[in-house]
């Protein structure tokens, strides 16, 4: 029923928000339907009626959302609203949590990733993840990037492996800074460089989707700006879903923005529209700093 409501749900008419003299308010207030555009035609991933429980506690309620090809979709919301939980559903990272239960359907290129026959190892190569805190392996810069292609058998010989490493570091905007010290430890890099190394590691296995969970929250403004620039370049080749606490970052890097609130997906829409004229009052209250 929820899905039907969503598919029939039209954009709330911009209309007039009449806040004076008791005139009825057109903007949706305090309801839990998703307003806006949760679905797209060229979806890389489709999520339908996704529910997530941690034991008895429901973290995500009946969520349906598409992630479009070659788009950057940002997920915003207050702490504990379920955005990181949802992000981890997209590559089954929640499988590592004992009491976490995921129901519903999540399709990657038409295949349900939660199907019993689905293999999570290649899934996590196709849907890579970059975490909040940079986590390079305790290996050299070269081996950090080469690790994934090696275990997935993506390189037939050393030359091909070197080419993958160089290409990945170049795409991550790190090649010029590390090309003369590839055999030095990855942990010796600065925070921003480490994060770009992690991005290079992710793209070395040619993913289709890159998930980023607050990738810049541990970085300084200059490193953040470089990562944001990089996200914009990566969009040409990858689909990116990013969780962020910075609304300015969401406004800068993404084409669509999804607002989560207490486990519900409240609103999804073009980023420009969400940040200038959100359709749902909850969204407006959050992004204007009227509710935390």
């Amino acid at each position, binding site marked *: 029923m929820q899905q039907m409501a969503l598919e029939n749900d039209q954009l709330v008419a911009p209309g007039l928000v009449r*806040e004076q003299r008791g005139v009825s308010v057109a903007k949706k207030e305090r309801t839990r339907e998703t307003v806006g555009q949760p679905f797209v035609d060229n979806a890389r991933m489709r999520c339908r009626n996704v529910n997530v429980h941690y034991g008895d506690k429901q973290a995500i309620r009946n969520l349906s959302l598409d992630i479009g090809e070659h788009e950057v979709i940002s997920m915003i919301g207050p702490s504990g609203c379920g955005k990181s939980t949802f992000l981890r559903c997209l590559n089954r990272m929640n499988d590592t949590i004992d009491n976490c239960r995921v129901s519903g359907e999540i399709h990657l290129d038409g295949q349900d990733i939660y199907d019993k026959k689905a293999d999570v190892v290649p899934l996590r190569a196709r849907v890579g993840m970059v975490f909040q805190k940079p986590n390079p392996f305790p290996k050299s810069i070269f081996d950090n990037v080469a690790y994934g292609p090696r275990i997935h058998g993506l390189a037939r010989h050393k030359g091909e492996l070197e080419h993958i490493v160089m290409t990945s570091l170049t795409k991550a905007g790190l090649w010029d800074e590390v090309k003369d010290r590839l055999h030095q430890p990855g942990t010796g890099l600065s925070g921003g460089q480490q994060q770009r190394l992690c991005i290079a590691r992710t793209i070395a296995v040619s993913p289709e989707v890159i998930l980023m969970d607050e990738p810049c929250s541990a970085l300084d403004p200059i490193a953040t700006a470089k990562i944001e620039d990089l996200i914009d370049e990566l969009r040409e080749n990858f689909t990116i879903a990013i969780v962020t606490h910075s609304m300015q970052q969401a406004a800068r890097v993404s084409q669509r923005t999804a607002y989560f609130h207490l486990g519900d997906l409240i609103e999804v829409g073009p980023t420009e529209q969400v940040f200038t004229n959100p359709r749902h009052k909850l969204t407006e209250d959050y992004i204007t700093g009227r509710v935390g």
Partner: protein
Amino acid sequence: MNQRLEGHIARRYDDELNHVHTSVIELGGLVLDQLTKTLEALSEREVSAALRVLERDESVKQLEKRLDDEIVRVIARRAPVAKDLRSVIGMAKAVADLGHVERECVNVAQMALAFFDHGMYPPPNNMMRDIYSMGRTAASHLRTGLEVFDICDLERAIETVALRQELSQEFQCCLRRLSTFLMEDARNVGQVVNVVLSTRSLERVGEYALNLCEYVIYQVTGEEPENHFTQNAARGSEPARGSEAGG
């Protein structure tokens, strides 16, 4: 206090927005007073009223500049979004338009001085009545625009914006009436031109005043009404909407 601007977790943000809003209304009050003095100068042939308008021009400009700076600071500090962003943009545009109104008042005040103080032969009353009539309309619109902007009254804003066509038509009527003076006696051309210019300035004041209502519509709904009046339209570089005279 404008409730639309309040409710932030950071109370200082409320204060900053309210301060800007209050200052915009203060600027509007000053400009309205300038307009009133200008009209008094014309109707009462009060040279001192016209001089007062010119004397206060500088202080109005300074307030306008202070407001511009304050708005920039709010944007830099707070990076407003959604309705806060629309409110700040609306306030910035209102400041700009009130500045234009002020400059039109100064133009008309200078014309009044030219009529009554500089030895020119002032236009007869029957020629001046169009200025008085347009002035009253402009003052009424400016008063309404400021009231609507102050309390963000959407319904009244929509009703008032609908008067734009009437304002344009009133100006067209003035032009037709004034043209008859030219047809009667070509030597009237100097006075007619001065009256036309003054009437045109007051018509623009009315247009800018109606813009204040449009900014309220934008602030509340996020939709910008069509046929928005701009300085370019006033100069004739864009098709002057509703005005065949142009420029």
